[in-house]
């Protein structure tokens, strides 16, 4: 079954066409099956990429269910090749078609057909699994039957990302359409095996016929989990670091305020805001798991919303009185930017005070109780409270 979700009949306007693929189990890599590829390039089975793809799918469904995607989901194509452990943990992974070459070609073509309904539609592509590169600015995704000795060339069961993208260009027929906003997430290594570079024109079997395009104003940001020549990492058996960072960005870190000139007034995530958010988040996750991973992007990172927030995401704020000796002598007032009282914290216990505020400009006033209490004096400052955390020091010692 190519489509696992088809809501086109329910939509009255443009929609989002999703294609997600995740491969953990590789048939012809060591421990895959009885037959091993002639050349495995040191690649091993993966433990979390199929789960990652599933989680991405679930996350999109959840956002869609709350009306928080820029466009409602119209169609979903999903292919998963889970490991045995992943399937034991989440049996639903086994109900989805495998991500082998035959299925990928089938689903890619179906996805493209769905996305050809309207220029106003959007697409979302996510792949998690092994990836290699033959040269700089190259990315080849390995499907679960990569290395099949009966398949022909080494890269027969693989996908050239550039070729995938080229096939989604606007057709030359002016009457034909295709989604003009396309997002690509490549959650895979870009390992430059010396062998690939020696035979750098090692061809990937074409996914489809690519014809000359018509006028092309497609906006297509591409997010690569790692930089050329590097590996992408995961928390074993759970989720890739890149997807963790993406979720953090979608949940909070990538949030930017609304535009004032009409339109949707909700806080949103854009391609432009995703980049620094993922960068920060990925570095944090990588450090937490004792690794290092840098991601990169290609294409236009513009400011059109990808997803929205129901409410502005909260900022974790910590307010400390300086010096500590003055804590019991003070109370705290939080003021709005219009200098109206918002919240009082008295006594300040525990110290430092912790609360959540919406991003924006707030006033923090530390008031010395029962003045005068020399040498201490009131403190007030208006400052910008920004995601994800803010630390404020109220200095009551002039």
């Amino acid at each position, binding site marked *: 079954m190519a489509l696992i979700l088809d809501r086109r009949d329910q939509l009255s306007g443009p929609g989002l066409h999703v294609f997600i693929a995740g491969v953990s189990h590789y048939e012809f890599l060591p421990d895959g099956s009885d037959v091993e590829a002639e050349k495995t390039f040191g690649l091993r089975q993966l433990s979390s990429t199929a789960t990652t793809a599933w989680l991405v799918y679930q996350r999109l469904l959840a956002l869609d269910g709350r009306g928080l995607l820029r466009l409602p989901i119209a169609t979903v194509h999903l292919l998963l090749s889970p490991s045995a452990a992943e399937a034991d943990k989440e049996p639903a992974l086994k109900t989805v078609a495998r991500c082998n070459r035959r299925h990928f070609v089938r689903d890619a073509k179906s996805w493209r057909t769905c996305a050809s309904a309207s220029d106003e539609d959007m697409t979302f592509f996510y792949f998690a699994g092994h990836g290699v590169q033959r*040269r*700089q*600015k190259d990315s080849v995704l390995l499907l679960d039957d990569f290395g099949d000795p009966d398949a022909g060339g080494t890269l027969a069961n693989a996908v050239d990302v*550039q070729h995938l993208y*080229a096939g989604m260009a606007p057709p*030359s027929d002016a009457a034909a359409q295709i989604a003009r906003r396309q997002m690509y997430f490549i959650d895979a290594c870009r390992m430059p095996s010396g062998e690939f*570079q020696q035979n*750098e*024109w090692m061809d990937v079997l074409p996914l489809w016929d*690519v*014809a*000359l*395009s*018509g*006028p*092309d*104003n*497609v*906006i297509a940001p591409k997010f690569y989990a790692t*930089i*050329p020549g590097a590996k992408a990492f995961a928390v074993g058996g759970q989720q890739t670091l890149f997807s963790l960072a993406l979720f953090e960005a979608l949940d909070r870190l990538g949030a*930017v*305020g*609304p*535009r*004032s000139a009409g339109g949707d*007034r909700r*806080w949103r995530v*854009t*391609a*432009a805001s995703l*980049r620094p958010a993922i960068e920060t988040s990925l570095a944090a996750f990588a450090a937490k798991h004792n690794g290092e991973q840098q991601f*990169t*992007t290609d*294409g*236009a*990172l*513009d*400011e059109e919303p990808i997803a929205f927030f129901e409410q*502005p995401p909260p900022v974790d704020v910590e307010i400390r009185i300086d010096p500590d000796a003055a804590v019991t002598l003070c109370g705290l007032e939080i003021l*709005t*930017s*219009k200098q109206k009282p918002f919240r009082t914290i008295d006594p300040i216990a525990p110290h430092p005070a912790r609360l959540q505020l*919406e*991003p*924006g*400009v707030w006033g923090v006033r530390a008031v010395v109780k029962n003045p005068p209490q020399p040498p201490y004096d009131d403190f007030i400052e*208006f*400052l*910008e409270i920004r995601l994800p955390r803010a630390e404020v020091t109220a200095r009551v010692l002039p």
Partner: protein
Amino acid sequence: MTRLRFSTKFTSPELRGLQLPLEVRSADQTLIGRVMTSESIDVEPGMYVVSARMPAGQEIRRIVEVGDKDLTVDLVPPGVRAAAVEVATFLGSSRARVADVRAAVAKVGPAALRAAASPARRRGIELPGKRVADAVGDALRGTVARLRGFAGNPLAGTLETVKLPLKEIARADNVVQYHVQGTETTTFLQLLHANRPPVNIALPLSGRAGCIVALHREAERVWVEVHVDHSEAGLLLGYQQSRAGSEEVQLGERLLRQKLDDPIAAAIGAYSLLRFGRLDALHDWTENLKNWFRWLPDGAAVRGEHLARLGRHGEALETFVGLPGLPVFSDGVAFVWERVRLYGRLEKEFPADLIEKAKALQQRLAPFIGFINFDNVVTTFTGLDPARPDAEVLKELPAAGGGAWDVT
């Protein structure tokens, strides 16, 4: 309504008067508008946040309380910086932050570095007639590197060694800035390091404007960044490098709206507009760029890609096969490569002689594609012979001469 005006506080001649793209947001983070520092914006009284982001990642942010009187907002660059190296500090990559390098050095400790440095190599940087003191101390001396210049067409193998017209314009901390005079020839700076592959960097030069080369010293190496001489184009180039989408769009359109006589600046603006699909903003500009500056490979690259995006593939291919050399900017190389590859596979769509030329161009480009670092906006690739890229590590420096400068 109250009028807000803006003023930046850069001190270097290169950045003083620089037009920065700004964001003005209300206290609740609603975007009120985006303006350049030379423009003004009218707002209701209240609190606002005015911000600008530099290509190297630093942010300038001011909370402003607006009453009834018009106001000028001063935007002071963060941190204490030597005015002399503001270009390298603010327009370079995030790697170029002087303070970060300092911190890295401080972490290792000069004693450890001194222990690693051979006494025979404790000399300073030498460039024609100048000796540059190593500001971070003796601990960093010992790096051996050489700079060379090449001009011509590496695709055709017609490169010659040239003595680059370098003039030191500023130095501070461990950064030295040089100005390179403009020329109407594609020019490359080569950095040779023992035990590293040689790196070739295209210099964004034109007959109208030169560029700035910033030489950075780290514990074990010297590395180079280039900046264009045109301040707004340099700013846009920096935003392209750091993938700062909002700023890139804001500045790209503005750059192209100006009457530009610098083809390098125009190419930089065109690349941004192509990236964001702003084909309508390009008009006939790309045709002018290609025809008025025939020596500049990026003119053909930009024009060809523009035509391809318009669906005029025959004209695009004709333009690409006339490429006079390797584009100065890696986006240009990528455009040409991807299109020529695609067209070469669609032989039936084009005349046979054009396909033959396309395949010949593909063959000339192919050796470079594997060694260009496409994460750098300026075309950068490895190889001792710039006409024959490779990744061979240099075991020892070749003989000096032919206008080379030693960095020791």
